[in-house]
């Protein structure tokens, strides 16, 4: 893995000695850490596979640090709390409490899912970030959208037009094998747009993802982020799902 500096936060798993297991669980990082808490598998904050400053100048180190250590960590913490409340409610047979906690599970669980994907969608330029997709995914993009430029334009337009907070996705429909551009509001995961939808790429357009650097000019953030997009990861997911 990439060099660790003083600035990266160690996940709970490494401290507990379950590091190798966690790494083996895969870079997909849906709570790739396997923390054991109260006999249940708790979600943990996955490590970034690069340093906070490694995506500059597209995304500043300051943003990456806050985004990972504060925002994503908060989703993980609150998701675990919500799951505990759910367990308690289920075991007591308290149906109103079960239903009441669903919002927190969706918000925070969604936030954890989406950001875990996001960190893998980004890559430092030195390690291949920004290199366009080839072979299967490249052809599929050309077929569906005409060209990579057209896809980028479409995602940027939809991302810029999204009101409030949310995500813009390059999605693969597992059933039809077709690509599409989707948006979701707040922390709704892509699957809320269709049960067969698989995220190949997601771009966070919540203000916290860009404000310190780009202020209100979301279009500039969208323009620049393509310099660090990890098409290799997207290709791997695509090939796995269309095999």
């Amino acid at each position, binding site marked *: 893995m990439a060099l660790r500096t003083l600035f990266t936060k160690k996940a709970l798993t490494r401290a507990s000695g379950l590091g190798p297991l966690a790494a083996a669980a895969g870079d997909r990082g849906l709570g790739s850490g396997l923390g054991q808490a109260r006999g249940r598998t708790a979600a943990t904050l996955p490590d970034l596979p690069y340093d906070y400053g490694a995506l500059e100048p597209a995304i500043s180190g300051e943003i990456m640090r*806050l985004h990972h250590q*504060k*925002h994503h960590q*908060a989703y993980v913490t609150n998701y675990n709390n919500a799951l505990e409340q759910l367990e308690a409610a289920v075991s007591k047979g308290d149906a109103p409490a079960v239903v009441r906690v669903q*919002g927190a599970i969706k*918000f925070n669980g969604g936030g954890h899912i989406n950001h875990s994907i996001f960190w893998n969608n980004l890559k430092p330029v030195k390690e291949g970030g920004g290199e366009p997709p080839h072979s299967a995914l490249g052809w599929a993009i050309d077929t569906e959208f005409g060209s990579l430029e057209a896809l980028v334009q479409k995602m940027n337009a939809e991302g810029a037009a999204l*009101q*409030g*907070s*949310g995500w813009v996705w390059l999605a693969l429909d597992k059933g039809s094998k077709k690509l599409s551009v989707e948006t979701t*509001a*707040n*922390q709704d995961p892509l699957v809320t747009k269709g049960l067969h939808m698989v995220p190949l790429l997601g771009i966070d357009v*919540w*203000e*916290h993802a860009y*404000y*310190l650097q780009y*202020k*209100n000019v979301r279009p500039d953030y969208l323009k620049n982020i393509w310099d660090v997009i990890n098409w290799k990861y997207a290709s791997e997911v695509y090939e796995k799902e269309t095999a």
Partner: protein
Amino acid sequence: MQHYTLSCCGGVKASLPPPLSFRWSKIKREGGRRLPRCARIAAQLELKPPPYSLSSLEPHMSRETLEYHWGRHHRAHVASLNNLIAGTDLDGMGLDEIVVVSYNKGNPLPPFVHAAQVWNHDFFWQSIKPGGGGRPSGRLMELIEKDFGSFDRMLEEFKRAALTQFGSGWAWLVYKANRLDVGNAVNPRPSEKDNKLVMLKSPNAVNPIVWDYSPLLAIDVWEHAYYLDYENRRADYVSIFLEKLVSWEVVSDRLDVAIERAAERAREAETRKQEDDTAVTHSEAVEMYLDSDTDDSEAE
């Protein structure tokens, strides 16, 4: 405040003093009698400045935040709104009306986000001031204690609303007069009692006037409102807002207006009810007369 410009086909512009908006729409509909035939009236809503300088809320809200929040975000909504409504039915309406009409009963039209955000931000800047904070008094404090139990409990509810508005949005203290006949929107809380203070939160640009509530206080919890000064720490921002920025005088004034408005509504409703009762009595009398008439003609 709106000022009106005429743009003739030749692109010549002239400014006129702002008359009542209804008169302008009327003139427009009548084919521009008083104006050159080619004139097209464009109502320009303006970006209102906050009632204090951009640096006077430091250190609680920085000048930089105001320069972006007011100078970029708020300004952009004004420009977008003007662009979208030019030449449409919404052109010439007051801002309140544009908000309610474009909300379209929960299926908002494109101008809504801009109209509502212009309204919301005007309201927000007025809600705070340098040297704000402290505690309210008089009728406002009485109502707070009646409807929340205590001032501190109200603050807790305000914070909770602000912190649990997930994503972008606003938290509101509103005065709610329960009316059964809500013209343009669906009232989401029909079961609550009349005339009380409640805490609300709303997503993105949504605004309680679309539910016919009277907002008294608002806090912007879009990330752009606090990120430069507080980063992710929304809780700190909300606390400072309440401790150092909120203008309880303005909230109090708004409450007075809201109570008066509710009283007037109640009076109007009562008058209408009485008129309806009288109308029913009259029509019964007419029907009796008509019945005997019909009998006569059949006899012929």
